[in-house]
Structure formats: C-alpha cells, structure tokens
C-alpha cells in the first residue's frame, strides 16, 4: 500500500480500526488525505468505498477477512458486485492460522462467499512478495476484487520483483505422478510435500493457484491430463473453496480422481498456527497422505 500511495494517485485506502494489522502506516504517512478511517463499522466502509469509485478513485477497503466478507456480504453484493464498482476488498487474518483468537475470527468460508458473486475476482497469494505484487496488480485491474491473506509469518520464497498476472497459475515443481494445486500459504506446504513425496519416489507437480476466480483451467487441465490425479490444498472449507472450483471444472470437462486438503465442515479453535494446521490436516504431511491416497485411485 505504501508503494501504491507513491505510484497511483487514484488509490484510496479505508480501514475499520485495524491500521497496524493491515500495515497501512506507510500509506497514511505518504497520503493522509487519501486514507479514510471508518471505525469499527465495516458495512459503512463497503458503502463508502462504492461511493468513492465515482470520481475515479480506486478504494482498497481493508480489515480482517471475517469482517470484510461474511459480516458485510450483502453490502458487497449490492453496492459493489451488482453495482459493478471498482472496489478492492483486501483482508488479512483469513483462515485458521490467525491462531489464538479462535473461531469467531477464523473465517474459512470467505473464498466461497466471494467467488459466488458474479464478476468478483478472488486472489489468495502465498507469501509476502506475492501479496505485494498482487496488491499492486489489482489496482490496475478494473472491477471488484477480493484479496485474502493470512496472519502468520510464512517463508518468503517467490521473487521480490515478480509480476503478478491475475488468473495465471504458476508452476513451481514439475512432476508426472500427481498434481498438487495449492493456494495461499498452503503453497509452501505443498512444496515441502513434493520434496517428501520425491523421497518416496513420487514425482509431484505443484502449481500455485493464487487466483481462485477466474481459475486457470488450462493450466489445471494440462497438468491433470499428464498426472491423472489431483490434490487441492487450501486454508478454507472444502465447501466453496479452491477444491470445489477445481472439482466443478474437472467433473464437467475431464473427470479425474481428486482429494481435498482443507477444513471439512468444521469451525476452528484457539491454538498456535502450527498446532491448528496439524490438527485440521492442513500441512505438508496431510498433502503427502492425500497424494498417496489419490494415486491409488487412478
């Protein structure tokens, strides 16, 4: 956001009392007149964002994922999506791994809620560099976008100067035995899983699906045609997530044995991120297990 404050005079930022968590200090310092504090009033923040688009501004509405999607679903639906407004909803603290705050804050349904809205782009980048690149890229895209990211510190493994292309999947590991489609910080876990699988003599292909909608179906199709089976991995419910989008596409176009790594119809709970990922089956071990299972179904 600090970069955008210096490079795009049309970008404005809004925040619902979470400036520190959303790392907006740099933007506010550079462009105080383009920052709007809404207080703890997310519905109003979405409406004001929609209004700010008139006159050519590009509002970035920011808060935690639970409050920026589920709490304000109807505001996003009517004032942003149906009205076709160029609003970027950027939310941190998505998923289980915000940790100790527990299930009230751990939204695992946000990808589903947002992708169901006609015209909404849904992006879940995998590390700091990709999140920064995506944040910059969506300012140049005309239309509503939901950008979600997590809270925990995760390894930064993508290039600092990467160009982010909305809807373009990224091949990270080439393989022929099983396709692993991962999004968000599960991409790192997928890379770890691929290394573990290699030790067992299995060549896994890992693809970073940073954009869930629009889905890069060509990349997915090409990979599963080669490997014949697929595992999806995400910090989200099975229902409504990346896996659900992939399953829908493959069912209609290229039925393929498939397994899901995600949360299966359950709320989260308090705990440390690593403990929660272990308990809810969201880590490299879980991906390895599902990969072996799905290969047996070929």
């Amino acid at each position, binding site marked *: 956001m600090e970069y955008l404050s210096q490079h795009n005079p049309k970008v404005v930022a809004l925040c619902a009392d979470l400036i520190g968590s959303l790392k907006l200090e740099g933007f506010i310092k550079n462009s105080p007149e383009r920052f709007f504090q809404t*207080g703890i009033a997310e519905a109003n923040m979405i*409406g004001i964002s929609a*209004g700010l688009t008139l006159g050519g501004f590009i509002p970035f509405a920011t808060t935690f994922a639970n409050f920026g999607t589920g709490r304000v679903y109807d*505001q996003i639906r009517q004032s942003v999506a149906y*009205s076709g407004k160029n609003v970027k909803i950027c939310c941190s603290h998505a998923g289980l791994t915000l940790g100790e705050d527990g299930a009230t804050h751990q939204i695992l349904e946000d990808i589903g809620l947002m992708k169901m809205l006609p015209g909404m782009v849904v992006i879940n980048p995998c590390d700091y560099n990709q999140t920064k690149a995506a944040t910059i890229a969506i300012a140049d895209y005309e239309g509503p976008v939901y950008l979600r990211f997590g809270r925990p510190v995760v390894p930064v493994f993508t290039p600092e100067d990467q160009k982010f292309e909305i809807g373009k999947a990224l091949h990270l590991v080439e393989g022929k035995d099983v396709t692993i489609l991962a999004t968000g910080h599960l991409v790192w876990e997928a890379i770890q899983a691929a290394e573990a699988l290699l030790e067992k003599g299995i060549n896994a292909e890992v693809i970073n699906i940073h954009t869930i909608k629009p889905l890069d179906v060509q990349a997915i199709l090409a990979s599963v045609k080669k490997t014949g089976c697929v595992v999806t991995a995400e910090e989200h419910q099975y229902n409504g997530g990346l896996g659900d989008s992939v399953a829908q596409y493959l069912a209609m176009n290229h039925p393929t044995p498939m397994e899901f790594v995600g949360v299966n119809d359950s709320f989260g709970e308090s705990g440390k991120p690593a403990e929660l990922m272990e308990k809810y089956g969201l880590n490299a071990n879980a991906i390895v297990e599902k990969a072996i299972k799905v290969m047996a179904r070929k």
Partner: protein
Amino acid sequence: MQTQEIQKISSQVRRDILRMVHACQSGHPGGSLGCTDLLVDLYFSTMNLKTDAAGKVVFDMDGTNEDLFFLSNGHISPLIYSVLARRGYFATSELASFRKINTRLQGHPTPHEHLEGIRIASGSLGQGLSVAIGAAQAKKLNGDKSTVYCLMGDGEQNEGQVWEAAMYAPHHKVDNLIAFIDENGQQIDGPTEKVMSNRDLQAKYEAFGWNVMRMDGNNAEDIQNTLIKAKAALGNGSPIMIIMKTEMGAGVDFMMYSHKWHGVAPNDQQLQDALAQLEETLGDY
C-alpha cells in the same frame, strides 16, 4: 423554477408511477407518490446537472462537477424512473417496460443494466447513505464543489448501517452532503411507531453532529425554501439532514393515510379513479 411548474411536472410523474405499477401489477406506489414533490424539485430545479450545448442532460457514471442524487430506499423505483425519463435521461416510452422481462427498469434500481441516471443499486435497505458519503468525499478529493443528495425512508432507519454512516459523516466533516428522511410514518408491517419506533430522529441526528432541518415534503414551496436554506448551510463542517414529513400515497385520496399502498398495485378501476385526480400535464408515455 416556479413551484407551479414543479407541481405540474409532479402531477405527470404521479400518473406515470400509477400507470407503471398498474401495468405490471407490481411495485411500490405509496412511497413513490409521497416523495414525488421532492424528486421533481431536485431534478428540475435544485440540482445542477450536466447538460450538452443544447441543454439536454448527459449521463456519465463519475458525475464529476455535477450534483448527484442517491436513492437509498430503492423500492420507490417508479418515481426515480419517471423523473429521470421526464428529465430526459432516457425515453419516456421505456417506462412501459418497468419490472418486465429484459427491462433496464428493474424492480429496484441498478446500474447493472446501464440505465442512464442510476449510479448504484439499492433495494436492500440501509446502504445508500454510506454510498452518498463516499461520493461526497470523492468530490472533495477532486476539488469538485458540487453537492451530493441522498434519500432514505423512515422505516429504513431501523437498519444499523444507517447509524454507522450517521456517525461517520460528521466525524469526517462531510459538509457537501444533503440527506433526506422520508418521514411518512409507515412501513410494511404498519406504522413505524408500532413496528420499531424511531422516537426523535431530529434529536438523534443532532446528537451525531448533523445540521437537521424539517420540511413538509408534499409542499413544493416549503421544499424549495428549505433547500435554499440547506444549500446556504453547506461547507460549514456538518452534513445536513432534512427530515421531511410526507403522506404515503400523496395525490391520490384513497391511497393516503394508510400503509396499505406500500407495495400494492391498483386494479383497473382504482387506476381510473386515481388518474382522475391527477392532471395529465406533459402527455402520458
């Protein structure tokens, strides 16, 4: 514009509303009739609208350097459609398509069908004031001196988001905004006092930091005078809220003094009885 001329246009707009709702046997005549005098004044007299060299209104989504109006209580869509058409944003013949398949005149207004004059979808209540505030702040950022207007219902004051917006606008000194509450005292389940009392709206908005005025929303002269007063009060650090008393169904005797006509269309005979009370001043569509 003389109030007599405004009243003439209002009479035609009321005919349009009744005929539109009758034709599709669906829609909300009560509130539409009640707010007619305000919207006709805004669009034909008070608001500064973008026009071409020939004086015809032109629409662009951004609406920079012109006054903007946001309808938050979107169910009174027949009114906004009639006013926009009569003002020249689109052909009055299109009013016949209201609420019918493939129409741009959806049950509740939306820019989704690219209807000239509509900038935001409304219908799910409580959202329009926030949007209007955002548009007003965009004008400030652009150095655009024009004014943003917004109309809400009194039943709509039940919605929590309205009060989020009510708190925000004075805090951020959004003083290029004039909002209205249509205080007709009725909502779907009955009188607002019975369904969910608003108690003292003036005291509430004043406590939030608004400059609150009152007017008779069915008196063209009072509307004009109050709007002159309101415009003179712009730019003083406070947003302006005008609480306007209206009669639901105003202009048609048997539709007044009841919430019965909130969302009910007249039958053939009722339409004839209603039209007989309203002069055809500009020619029916």
